[in-house]
Structure formats: structure tokens, C-alpha cells
């Protein structure tokens, strides 16, 4: 089932991430992983970037810049610390040692950790303010739509400064309805909830999640939210 929305995030007015939803079906990255065997010296140049080992130079045979090391010689990297293998060795020292060769490296894309998501939310919060400030024309809002080849990021900033972000396929239509609906769900199931505090707490309410899921199913089935039951 190809869900229409890849990601939903809600950032409060202080820049903290209070809710995130990720489409689980897209976490299956095995289709985009590849394993290659190399002899010494290593052809692709691998460096540590953002605490994970990535290819920075030397694209060949499907291995591209940005691919991260997922496993070396069959041993996976540790989940929390991708520069270390599960057996405790450091990836970079294994690759620098000629005795480990020929070495087989599995490349792929590492998914974002929770911490990274929180950092990205904060980064987005500042970017929003800067884009409003750098406008060549007076009176601009911050960025409302980010377009790339792979996805589109839509942002709705409410009057209270809360930002709702939705990441979708570039061809997905009716995302404004989705943004508005998420705002309604936030108002109904989070703001009106007596147990909800504004102190950067994560939104963890069953009814909130159920409402979001039901909205996504409706969007998937009908392509828009016009007849959504309240």
C-alpha cells in the first residue's frame, strides 16, 4: 500500500518537534541497498560525516555520493553509532587496514534517528524565519513549499506560530487540505486535551493518532479530503 504522505511533523512555536509520523512502508530500504567487494586500495572515498560513514567521492557501479556504509564483511553497523560495527570495531580502521581486504561493503541509506529529526525541526524553524527575512519583496511569509526531485515539503504556519510540515510525492495534489485537516486534528485532540501542556511535550494521544490514520486512509482511497466525515 503506497501511502500518499511520507512524513508529517508538527513543530511548536519555540522550534521543538512535538509530533512526527513516518510512513512505515518506506522504511524498507532493502530494495536500494547494494553490496560490493573491493580490493586494497579502496576505490570510493569514504569519510565520516554526521557520525556515519559516507561515500564522498568515486561514484561507480551504482554506488553514489551520499551512500552510507551499512555493513562490512557481513557485520552490520551498530544502530545507535553507525561508525562502529556490531563487533566493536571502527568502520574506518577496518577499511584502512590492508589485512581486511578483499572487503565486501554494503551501501544504503541510513534512516534518521529521533535526535536528528529534532535537530532538523529546529533547523527548519530557523530556515522559515530566514526565508521570510531574505525576501526581495516586502511582507513575505516563510517558506511554504520546498520542491526537490524526490519529494515536496509543504508547511503551514498557524497564527500561533505552530508549523505543520507534510512531506509528499512531488505529484501529490490536495496537500493544502491535508495541512488544514492536521491543524484541525491538532486543535481537537491535542489543544483541547486537558493533559496536554505546551512545554515541548511530545503529542502521544491515541485519538490523535487514530484521526491522522483515518485521514491518511481517506486520502489514499479518494485522493482528496473533500468528503471526510468530521
Amino acid at each position, binding site marked *: 500500500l503506497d501511502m500518499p504522505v*511520507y512524513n508529517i511533523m508538527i513543530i511548536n512555536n519555540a522550534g521543538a518537534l512535538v509530533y512526527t509520523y513516518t510512513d512505515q512502508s518506506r522504511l524498507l530500504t532493502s530494495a536500494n541497498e547494494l553490496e560490493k567487494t573491493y580490493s586494497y586500495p579502496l576505490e570510493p572515498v569514504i569519510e565520516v560525516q554526521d557520525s556515519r560513514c559516507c561515500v564522498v567521492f568515486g561514484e561507480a557501479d551504482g554506488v553514489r555520493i551520499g551512500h552510507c556504509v551499512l555493513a562490512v564483511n557481513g557485520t552490520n553497523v551498530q544502530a545507535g553509532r553507525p561508525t562502529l560495527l556490531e563487533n566493536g570495531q571502527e568502520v574506518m580502521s577496518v577499511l584502512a587496514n590492508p589485512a581486511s581486504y578483499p572487503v565486501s561493503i554494503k551501501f544504503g541509506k541510513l534512516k534518521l534517528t529521533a535526535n536528528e529529526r529534532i535537530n532538523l525541526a529546529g533547523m527548519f524553524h530557523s530556515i522559515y524565519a530566514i526565508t521570510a527575512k531574505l525576501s526581495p519583496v516586502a511582507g513575505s511569509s516563510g517558506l511554504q513549499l520546498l520542491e526537490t526531485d524526490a519529494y515536496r515539503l509543504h508547511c503551514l504556519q498557524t497564527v500561533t506560530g505552530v508549523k505543520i510540515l507534510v512531506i509528499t510525492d512531488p505529484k501529490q495534489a490536495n496537500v493544502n487540505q491535508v495541512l488544514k485537516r492536521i491543524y484541525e486534528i491538532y486543535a481537537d485532540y491535542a489543544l483541547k486535551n486537558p493533559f496536554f501542556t505546551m512545554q515541548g511535550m511530545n503529542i502521544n494521544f491515541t485519538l490523535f493518532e487514530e484521526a491522522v490514520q483515518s485521514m491518511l486512509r481517506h486520502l489514499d482511497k479518494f485522493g482528496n479530503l473533500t468528503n471526510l466525515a468530521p
Partner: protein
Amino acid sequence: PMSHQSNLVSSGPMSAPTGTGSQLAPVTVHNVYIFDKNGTCLYFCEWPSQQQQQQQQQQQQQKEASEHEDRTRLMYGLIYSIRTLAAKLCPVGEIKDATYLAYVTSQYKFHLLDVPTGLKIVLNTDKSAGSMRHQLETIYSKIYVPYVVLNPECNLGDPVSSRLFADSLNEYLLTLQAK
């Protein structure tokens, strides 16, 4: 040089090949920035609208230089952060080609082309513009490369001071805005 310029003028509407309607429609360009891979602003030019020109004449001219430098630094910071954000948020497993990026606000649209050498070309247009990837690539390959890169007088890393470059860029952007 003369034949070059006439080539550029006649190739204005060359956006025909991938011809979506938006590429032939007039686009209002607000300003252009060119940054090198170290963050130095190599070129900046703006085309303020009538209202803005009146406002600027009324304001003080003295603060403009430092304000401009602050703006370019802020702009480069924005470019760096937005590229990091865009790369990290990429949802599918495949690493896609990350050379062109655009964002829209309520008043303008920002386009960024990342050239393999690390050069970054930024264009700010009105918000109804479509994808300006093709136009930015044209600016790079047909204006920047011939007039700056291939110019023995222009040193890499120095701000562009070539009049030929400025004039042909101006002319190309006017063809985008003309109808």
C-alpha cells in the same frame, strides 16, 4: 563577442524543447546571487520593482554596503542549511540528484542550482515561476562559463567584475521577463 551576444539574444526562448507553458510565460526576476564553494559572493544583481525603487531612494544609502554583506552572509547560510535539510529529509531509499532545489513563500520563489564544481547560482523570482532549472543551467553554461571561467582576466574566487558578463546576464534575464 558580438556573435556570442547575438546568439544569446536569439536563444532566449530556447526553453521550447521541454516546453511546459510556464517556461515561456514571463517571469519577474527580483535578484541573482552567485556564490563559490567557499561562500564568497561572486556576483549579485537586483532588479527592484517600482515601489522598491521609490522606497530605496527615500532611505539612507550609507548603510547599504554593510547591509548587503550581512544579506549575502545570511543568504549563504540559508543555502547551506537548506541543502543539508533537503538531503536529510529525502524519504525514499534512493539518493536522488540534488543539484536543483526551489522553495516558494507567499511573495517570492527561490531557485538554487548547485554546479558540480561547488558554485551555487541563486535566482529569486515571483512565485508563479515554474522550474527554472533549465534557465539556471543556461546561465551557468552559456554566460558564466564563457565570460568568467574562460576569461583569463577573471581569477577564480574573486568577485566577478566583467562588464561583458553583467551585460549578457542582464540581457538573458530580460528575455525571460519579456513577452
